[in-house]
């Protein structure tokens, strides 16, 4: 802090942006999507990405044309992988000499802070949600050592304020949605509910969905629930479906390719993901990109009335927000949307319009403006904050 800036952006050259992220495609997940859309979408900066290696990464990177440095090894422990990621980021930064470091997750914040100290690079820190509850001290560190912070929802901004009261400027920039080229619905033979989330964290509410499904089937006997995503909770979830006698109505697809996921969004009648607030200090859903992705296909959503989903879904306008711990409430909302075509169409259309406002190019624009703010002037940060991306309510 207070370090001198050895070399500012060179005249005429694009400012250099280093994105350090523990999550990047082809691995699936929301943070992966955020990091990727920014790396691919920011045009006014020269970008390099530091990310862990993952199966299929080489082909993905070759096809994407992005400059991604993959960090190998670190063992089975996530802590080891993160340590290597930070070392690699710092070592690479000494050659790349970024003007701005974007830390896509707080686990990358030690590298970002070191780069800031050594090279004077401006640091912007992304906050999602769950990590703040899981690692409050690291979140505090990350917020204090960043020039600006991005919270993906008002809920997330509140979480940051709780653990890092001395955080510098925190900007709410909601996550974006990919707008499909052809969002028209595709035919499907059964009333279809889809959930898109890794089956890794309980707070996503897959368990409540199983309980709710048993009640939905009483009213809509031919309904099916399509579960897209994989993770360590899946075997237990499959057994829970058998335990409730609803296994015949559930299709566990696992992790699927983007085009297959999009096909299911086009087929589905409703997307349901009743994310709840986990117990203790754990934080849960920061935003829930899946809600917007479904909206982009004109699908109404059922979501929990807590956490970041409140920012992603307008209750009664683009979807129904319900008590995510209450299977009956979830079942009633799903049943309403399956049985009332007019309501489903109205919410779906409103969601589609709203998703347009959250199209990734618009979100990328906001983030890019924030990244560039303050460059060329002193690092004390007098730059105007970009329009805070609080979604319209």
């Amino acid at each position, binding site marked *: 802090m207070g370090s001198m800036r050895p070399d500012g952006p060179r005249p005429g050259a694009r400012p250099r942006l280093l994105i350090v992220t523990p999550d990047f495609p082809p691995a699936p997940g929301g943070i992966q999507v955020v990091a990727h859309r920014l790396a691919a979408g920011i045009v006014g900066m020269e970008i390099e990405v530091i990310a862990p290696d993952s199966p299929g990464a080489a082909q993905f990177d070759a096809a994407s044309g992005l400059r991604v440095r993959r960090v190998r090894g670190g063992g089975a422990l996530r802590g080891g992988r993160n340590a290597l990621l930070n070392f690699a980021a710092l070592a690479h930064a000494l050659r790349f000499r970024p003007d701005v470091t974007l830390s896509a997750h707080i686990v990358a914040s030690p590298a970002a802070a070191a780069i800031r100290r050594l090279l004077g690079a401006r640091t912007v820190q992304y906050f999602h949600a769950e990590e703040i509850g899981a690692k409050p001290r690291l979140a505090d560190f990350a917020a204090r050592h960043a020039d600006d912070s991005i919270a993906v929802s008002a809920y997330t901004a509140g979480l940051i304020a709780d653990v890092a009261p001395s955080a510098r400027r925190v900007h709410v920039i909601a996550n974006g949605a990919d707008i499909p080229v052809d969002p028209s619905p595709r035919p499907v033979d059964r009333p279809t509910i889809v959930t898109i989330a890794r089956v890794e964290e309980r707070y996503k509410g897959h368990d409540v969905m199983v309980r709710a499904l048993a009640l939905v089937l009483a009213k809509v006997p031919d309904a099916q629930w399509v579960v897209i995503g994989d993770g360590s909770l899946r075997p237990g979830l499959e057994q829970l479906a058998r335990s*409730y006698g609803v296994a015949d109505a559930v299709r566990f697809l696992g992790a699927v390719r983007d085009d297959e996921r999009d096909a299911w969004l086009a087929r589905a009648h409703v997307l349901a993901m009743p994310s709840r607030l986990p117990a203790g200090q754990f934080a849960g859903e920061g935003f829930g990109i899946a809600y917007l992705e479904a909206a982009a296909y004109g699908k109404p959503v059922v979501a929990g009335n807590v956490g970041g989903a409140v920012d992603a879904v307008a209750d009664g306008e683009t979807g129904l927000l319900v008590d995510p711990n209450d299977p009956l409430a979830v079942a009633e909302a799903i049943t309403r949307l399956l049985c009332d075509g007019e309501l489903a169409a109205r919410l779906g259309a409103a969601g589609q319009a709203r998703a347009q406002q959250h199209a990734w190019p618009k979100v990328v624009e906001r983030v890019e403006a924030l990244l560039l703010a303050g460059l060329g002037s002193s690092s004390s940060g007098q730059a105007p904050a970009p329009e805070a991306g609080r979604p319209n309510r």
Partner: protein
Amino acid sequence: MCATLRHRGPDDEGVHTDADSGVSIGARRLAIMDLPGGHQPLCNEDGTVWVAFNGEIYNHRKLRDDLRRRGHTFSTNADTEVLVHLYEEYGEAMVHALEGMFAFAVWDQRAARLLLARDRFGEKPLFLHEHDGELLFASELTSLLQVRPSLRELDPYAVDAFFVFAYVPGPGTIVSGVRQLQPGHLLSWKRGAASSRERSWWTPPQVGVRRSESFASVAAEAKLLLDESVRTRMVADVPVGVFLSGGVDSTLVAATAAEASSQRLKTFTVGYDTGAVNETERARAVAERLQSEHHEVTLTQDDVAERAPAVLAALDQPLADRAAIPLHTLSEFARPRVTVALGGEGADELFGGYPRYRWLERARRLQSALPDVAVRSLAGALRQSAKLGPIERASTRLAPTPVLERNLDWVTSERRHRREALYGPRLMKLDRGRVLANLATRAGELDGGTAARWLMHLDQVHYLPDDVLVKTDRASMLVSLEIRTAFLHAGLAELAGSLDTSMHLAGAGKALVHAMLPADIIPTTRFARYRKTAFRVPAAEWLRGPLAPVLRRQLERGTIYSEGFFDRRAAERLVGEHAAATHDHSDQLWPLLSFGLWADRFHGLDEA
């Protein structure tokens, strides 16, 4: 039939008969919710759906609000009426909306269909007799047999299983013509149909997958669910207390209830005037920490002499769980002060509280790691050196028999090997292997999981509903007190069942329960190693003292000997050795005494 059930429901009685279809449903009621308005059976607005219900629906207020919003009108505040409207709304899927302990019957006049359902864990009983399109059902076997005396025929295989397990394993009963609706099952019967349709609507999940989530986050989730469970179970229009044994389970329930309660909590415990096991001190220490209004009762030897024979004879089906006696004492003692008490039942089965889970898991691993001959000679060597009981037991526990048999012998004190000597002519010719074969069927496949997970699941579907919950329900209902089990909550059971057993068995076992305990609740280091307690019973002392005359009377006149079920001489030898204190035969004498007293009442009624 209803009159026999008076003790289960002293406050009210009612019967509805649908003359057109020849269907009657009746109920007796212990008033806990909506004291004046809960007359049963209850019906919907136009009298086409009738419900008779035994138990408690903990989320009935929320369900009522939901149903009202959907246009249903209620005429009472009782939880029973929720069932009527929930049935109208969801049909048989209604069970999925219920959080509680229940057995109920819904008569749908329009569809001419009867629906019977039983709660997830089997907390409330439901007995059935079905023959030739006719269906009889009741909350007690005794009242069913009163209606149909021809069914009063003991099933020798059930007697055999009773002697081995010390309880009658479901879905059978002690008589051959009557069965139980299994926990988490429902049965649909249509007038005129050849037979009814029965199906499972919930089973305890048992996938133990190693996962990335932290122990802390799982413990936090479990505590959240327990808080909710306790909060909803404390809702009643009558006073609610907690049965506090001083063990970790009831301590956790009491601590959680104290957090949830705006009033000073009432806690109750029972102790003894004999034997080495007295946990009242522990319970008192916990009560002091919680600043509860604590009540202690001592079950004296004089009291045992009167109470034990009466309770054992009065149980609906024979049950040789000795803890039924102190539980009955405690319920009777608490009844003038509270109508409802929270208990810690089920925690051991859900959260891995029994040490044998770990030992048998280890033994299985050892066995698969060592060649057979090594295990056999190790077990043999242990047996050679077995001067003391515990070592002898340990050697059998390590013997190279399959896990299920080893577990069976562990929990039943190897009674199946004592049958040869004790059985009379009525039981002598039975196929002795059937007990184990039936158990294996109930246990299902090990299915790639750990032995510990498999045994926990077996206990959840066998020992828990057929022993623990029978004891809990009958011992308390005999004095019209309701015990609500805080751990038997669907979400909590599903969470527990989805965890890797290593998470449960970490530390001294039952790791999640320990993690949920408030930090300062366990008073001193003296209590640091909390052992399993749950109102342990000085049965050996009782059988030498206050119950010795009862045993002798049994030997002289008991019908189980005169009817040829058990061999009088063999039993005499056991009683003699036990009385002389050269041996502790309480593991065999208690089942003989329980069954003997029960059978005398059963046969006595026969003569009446």
